[in-house]
């Protein structure tokens, strides 16, 4: 990469050294008059952003207008060197759109690019801060078009470059040859690094080359098309794909050439297929249109068609098998925790999600909250063994803190992700009463957030219509989190709720 800046030298200097070589000729503001010769700025070939920036800073600092600058490019190293000792000028404070435009235009091959950019900077620094917003200004318009040309060139390089795989002593090596229109190799390379980070690759162009060894990007001398590896086993396959994805009934060569100009074709293996595809297209299309419809030669797969419509799980066991083999939505859980209890139970309890203990044992309501629930059920006269217990979400979600796995509440999206299973599960179990324990269960059963304190008690879940009765109460883990003084009262209220549940259950069973 180029480090040194450009040289500011005046022709005047060359003939007659000025007393202060750093200052250059006086600016018009200082009364320089008409007698001054243009400043000649020498930049490196290609996209010399550093050189241009240093020169522009100095020229602006010295008040030299664009018409007094001549920009030239040289690759003769002798002209650089000694003069770079000049003190660098202070950075220019430019509006963002100007600063963004400069690197977009610098790679353009138009020799006028530096002069145009400097004219823009000059005007922006002399009363036209908002110049970039005036897209109708001829200078801005032209620079925009140049930036667009660079954008297109970059885009085409990202799109049309083709790697060939080779092997050398160090292993796989992917090599490409590409001929961009502008000086864009360095601007294009980061895309390939981000995309092919794990591959060793080289991109060769007539102006220079870029090499990635999976860790470092380096630039080297121009490449040679002849040094490309011979062929690649996948090029024929790729051409096969290209041929097959073409629809002859829609042939539109103009559109193809507009987007993929011919100049790119010789570096794209698939384009070898184009002439034959085009020649055959009309004939293939006519044949398709004229051909009489045929009768099927295979037998109608009636049984397979009938079986296909019948894929839904038919039993709770079949559903559970699906749940068991599905991965948790949020990674981490050991296993899915399925519902437990007899199918056809009068009462089904729906909790939130398995906790740490449930996740280890693979059974619902076996941790501290589950034990509390068992106690309360016993006090309320509900036989736990005769009830069905399950959770809205089937996997434990947690955050690891040291050795502990701290429960994390499932999000609304996660709850609705699991609700398909809960729905079907309850259909199979077919309880007469569904008890939602806590807000998550209510969310899973209603699809919306309902405040528990207000909805507590008998509740109609729309999805069951009137086939199944509903009841809402708190989750037992809520009781565990309460301060001791509040615990007793809340527990009593919970047991009261369960007594009502038991009562409704008895009525429904009768």
């Amino acid at each position: 990469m180029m480090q040194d800046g450009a040289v500011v030298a005046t022709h005047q200097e060359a003939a007659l050294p000025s007393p202060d070589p750093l200052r250059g000729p006086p600016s018009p503001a200082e009364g320089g008059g008409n007698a001054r010769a243009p400043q000649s700025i020498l930049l490196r070939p290609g996209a010399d952003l550093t050189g241009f920036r240093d020169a522009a800073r100095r020229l602006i600092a010295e008040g030299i207008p664009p018409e007094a600058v001549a920009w030239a490019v040289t690759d003769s190293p002798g002209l650089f060197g000694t003069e770079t000792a000049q003190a660098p000028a202070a950075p220019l404070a430019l509006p963002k759109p100007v600063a963004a435009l400069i690197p977009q235009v610098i790679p353009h091959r138009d020799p006028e690019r530096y002069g145009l950019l400097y004219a823009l900077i000059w005007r922006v620094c002399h009363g036209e801060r908002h110049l970039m917003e005036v897209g109708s200004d001829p200078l801005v318009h032209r620079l925009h078009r140049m930036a667009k040309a660079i954008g297109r060139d970059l885009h085409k390089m990202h799109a049309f470059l083709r790697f060939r795989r080779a092997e050398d002593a160090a292993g796989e090596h992917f090599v490409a040859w590409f001929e961009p229109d502008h000086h864009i190799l360095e601007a294009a390379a980061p895309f390939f690094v981000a995309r092919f980070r794990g591959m060793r690759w080289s991109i060769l162009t007539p102006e220079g080359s870029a090499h990635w060894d999976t860790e470092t990007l380096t630039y080297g001398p121009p490449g040679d098309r002849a040094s490309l590896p011979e062929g690649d086993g996948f090029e024929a396959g790729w051409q096969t794909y290209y041929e097959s994805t073409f629809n002859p009934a829609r042939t539109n060569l103009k559109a193809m050439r507009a987007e993929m100009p011919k100049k790119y074709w010789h570096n794209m293996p698939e384009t070898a297929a184009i002439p034959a595809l085009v020649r055959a297209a009309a004939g293939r299309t006519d044949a398709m249109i004229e051909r009489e419809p045929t009768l099927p030669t295979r037998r109608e797969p009636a049984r397979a068609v009938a079986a296909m419509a019948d894929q839904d799980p038919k039993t709770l066991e079949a559903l559970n098998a699906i749940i068991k083999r599905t991965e948790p939505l949020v990674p981490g859980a050991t296993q899915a925790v399925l519902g437990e209890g007899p199918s056809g139970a009068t009462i089904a309890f729906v909790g939130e999600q398995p906790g740490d203990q449930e996740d280890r044992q693979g059974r619902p309501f076996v941790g501290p909250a589950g034990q509390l629930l068992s106690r309360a059920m016993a006090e309320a006269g509900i036989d736990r063994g005769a009830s069905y217990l399950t959770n809205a979400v089937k996997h434990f979600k947690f955050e690891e803190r040291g050795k502990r796995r701290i429960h994390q509440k499932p999000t609304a999206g996660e709850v609705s992700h699991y609700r398909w299973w809960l729905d079907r599960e309850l259909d199979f179990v077919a309880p007469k009463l569904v008890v939602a324990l806590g807000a998550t269960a209510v969310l899973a059963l209603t699809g919306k957030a309902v405040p528990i304190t207000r909805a507590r008690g008998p509740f109609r879940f729309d999805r069951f219509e009137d086939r199944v009765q509903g009841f809402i109460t708190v989750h037992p883990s809520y009781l565990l989190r309460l301060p001791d003084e509040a615990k007793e009262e809340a527990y009593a209220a919970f047991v009261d709720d369960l007594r009502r549940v038991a009562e409704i259950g008895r009525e429904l069973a009768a």
Partner: protein
Amino acid sequence: MDETLAKKLRILADAAKYDASCASSAAPKRAAGKDGLGSTTGAGICHAYTPDGRCVSLLKILLTNWCLFDCAYCINRRSSNVRRAKFTVEEVVNLTLNFYRRNYIEGLFLSSGIIKSPDHTMELLTRVAKSLRRDHGFAGYIHLKSIPEASPWLIEEAGLYADRLSINVELPTEASLERLAPEKDGAAIQNAMAQIGERIVEAKAEKRRFSPAGHSTQVIVGADATTDEALIRKSAHLYGSVGLKRVYYSAFSPIPDGSAILPPKPPPLQREHRLYQADWLLRYYQFTPDEVADASEGGMLALDIDPKLAWALKHREKFPVDVNKADREWLLRVPGLGARAVDKIITARRHATLRLDDVARLTSGLKRARPFLVAADHRPVGLTDRLDLRARLVEPATQLSLF
């Protein structure tokens, strides 16, 4: 690549090409980790163009073209006599990676015929995406075709690995579906699309990954008698009700071994083009479906002029519009002015009074715009009201024929 695999590729690429969608855009920008492969750029990249002028961005293939469905418009319907093939999951994964490494593609667009059952098929599709992401650290673009008849949890699992999910409406009316695609169910399609739409919104809000590039659909144009107006109304409904990112319009194309109940000839490709333009009017130009209908004649959009121009010609009393003063909403109504040109005009006129030359530097559609615009040095005296204005603005016929 060995011969058997190449043969399968030939059959299964040929079978997939009637899906118009090829976009690799709208995925959040990302790049693979240290030893991984792939990136997404946001805008998508077309890696080649075939002689039909369409871009090749993704490896668009079917997992299999065996199918139990019998949709009349489809080359893969079970009663068709095309050659059949089936990839294994590993074959698709390897093909994708090998093409990707050579910079041929942006990623994979995988669809499939229905084999065994919709659930079985959906599981296979998801396994491909999962293997690419999990086993190979693949960060490129993945578009999975969802099967609306599959169980909802399977569709949702697919969204965890895909950048985009899509379900094809294919036929815009229930009657056409019944006649041409007997195994498909319009309500199931709509429900599955709504389900995907909801999950995408939720996941965005919860900053989880679920089909981050949105979802899309395709309708076939010209396989039944549905009018352009009805198609656009259907699209407007889908954009509104299930939050679709894109509707693709695919002019019904003759296929090898076509069905007897299809029209013998395809619709003009220009019809598809006009539908896309009308679709853009809905999404970016604040047109309502009623206004698009208003731009059509008997429910069909004109083929020789674009729908925005057609609307303007019918509403000449609203023009000309002053580039230096008019609201954005009205500038957007001017034929020839694109949304980007309008934004540039609005920014530029804060600093300068625009003349016709200035406008010419801000849009490439000045010829069409002229009769409808007032600029500092231009007034389309009488031009807006000329009876032959339409004839003057019609695109030359050579551009109409895409052949």
